[in-house]
């Protein structure tokens, strides 16, 4: 009986015996083979039995289906064929075929447990280059879609060194400290009033352990996420947080 071996990089995730005449592959839960990865379309590809052979067919997926490194629409499968979908590989094995056709990567993973205590690095360079090529469409699409919006602080009131700050860096310090991005002026301005952290397009403000910073007139006692329009107040300085394209 033929089977599919689902792999990620060199690791075998699952073996799927082919018991039906048609097997659907995709990200949606209804598929026979579900691959939960954003590079995989809802209904990505399907396998169907044509006489005594399975045929792989791309279901007009966004990122394509690759058979042995070639993008295909529809193709006949033979033992040892590697189907690449997103970043996952499906190896087609037909027991009628020659066992020698087992791809080298599988042998490698089978050997791994024997070297159990030594750390091993995956030799994935070639594979990754190929993956990078194959998924470039996916990443391009994703990056234009999820273009990170930048946070921005507009000074409403008080003495600072600029009228506006665009928060491009990972950490932004508000205070008189020389490390501060938003520099407060005046004799008794706090050295560090608050710290803004950027993580994956979101901004979180945390109080410095000593001073009193307020967000929307509430005293900032624990870290909180900044939302559009929030007003940060440190003594007489007021800053409004906005997102910018």
């Amino acid at each position, binding site marked *: 009986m033929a089977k599919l071996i689902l792999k990620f990089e060199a*690791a075998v995730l699952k073996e799927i015996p082919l018991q039906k005449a048609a097997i659907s592959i995709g990200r949606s839960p209804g598929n026979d083979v579900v691959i939960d990865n954003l590079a995989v379309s809802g209904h990505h590809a399907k396998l169907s039995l044509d006489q005594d052979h399975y045929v792989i067919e791309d279901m007009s997926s966004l990122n394509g289906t690759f058979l042995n490194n070639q993008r295909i629409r529809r193709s006949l499968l033979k033992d040892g064929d590697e189907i690449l979908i997103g970043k996952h590989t499906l190896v087609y094995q037909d027991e009628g075929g020659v066992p020698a056709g087992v791809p080298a990567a599988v042998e490698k993973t089978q050997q791994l447990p024997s070297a159990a*205590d030594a750390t091993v*690095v995956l030799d994935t360079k070639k594979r990754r280059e190929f993956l990078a090529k194959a998924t470039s469409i996916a990443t391009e699409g994703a990056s234009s879609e999820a273009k990170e919006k930048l946070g921005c602080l507009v000074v409403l009131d008080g003495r600072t060194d600029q009228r506006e700050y665009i928060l491009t860096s990972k*950490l932004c310090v508000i205070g008189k400290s020389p490390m501060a991005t938003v520099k407060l002026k005046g004799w008794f301005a706090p050295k560090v009033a608050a710290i803004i952290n950027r993580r994956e397009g979101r901004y979180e403000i945390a109080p410095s352990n000593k001073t009193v910073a307020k967000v929307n007139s509430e005293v900032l006692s624990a870290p909180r996420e900044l939302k559009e329009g929030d007003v940060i107040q440190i003594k007489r300085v007021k800053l409004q947080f906005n997102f910018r394209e």
Partner: protein
Amino acid sequence: MRIAVGARSDTGLVRQNNEDRFAVDLSLNLYILCDGMGGQAAGEVASKLGVDIILEHCRQAATNPHLEMAGAYQPEFSAPTNRLASGIRLSNQAIHEAAGQQASTSGMGSTVVAAEINENILSIAHVGDSRIYRCAEGELRQLTQDHSLVMEQVRRGLITREEAEQSELANVIMRALGAEETVQVDLDEHWVNEGDQILLCSDGLTRLVSDAQIAPILAEPWTPQQACERLVELANEQGGEDNITVVLVRLLPPPPLSRWKKALRSILGGNRVWPN
């Protein structure tokens, strides 16, 4: 900021040699830990190269801020963070080249975690499955994400964290110094306060000692060195299967004020923050 540091590296109970290596530079507030891999002595060669080159690069940069950076400068990070990345990329090149020269060292590699503290900003950089933790107000948090196959599967939702810990593929890492010509370095920055503790450790600790066991040790009123000794001891009690290395950095509160300053401040009063 005043800092107290402890560190300890141990071969463990199973291995013949120690392939871990660490460095502490108190003048730069720089801490580096590498866990080498590869047959015979190759792992030791790789981790030594890793630590030495990063340390040397950062020391040179301290006297010459215009020292050339290896790799692209990432403007969202501060200069010290970029400097760590640059040092790590250089060490990757060196290990990769050295690995290609001799049969005995071919295939060697190393993980790295590096941390530097400038005022209150903690810069961290890492490649592989060694970790950096931060303990703040009694709460222990892992700041790095392991570049291991199993953790990658956890992040993709393919397996659970429990399955990852049991997996026999736990020793497979996705990135390492020396594996390829170039390496992708993960960077981050955190604001740290007095009283915080930063722990760098190799997987010889974290594979045997859980986060729940680490946290109470850091909470004990011990010196950082005593805490490090205890962590290593605990890993050995639980099997000592791999080399164990820990570096613990504790940020101390400022020294007590002189009587004069105290008096002056109490007269002027107010909830002010004073220059030191």
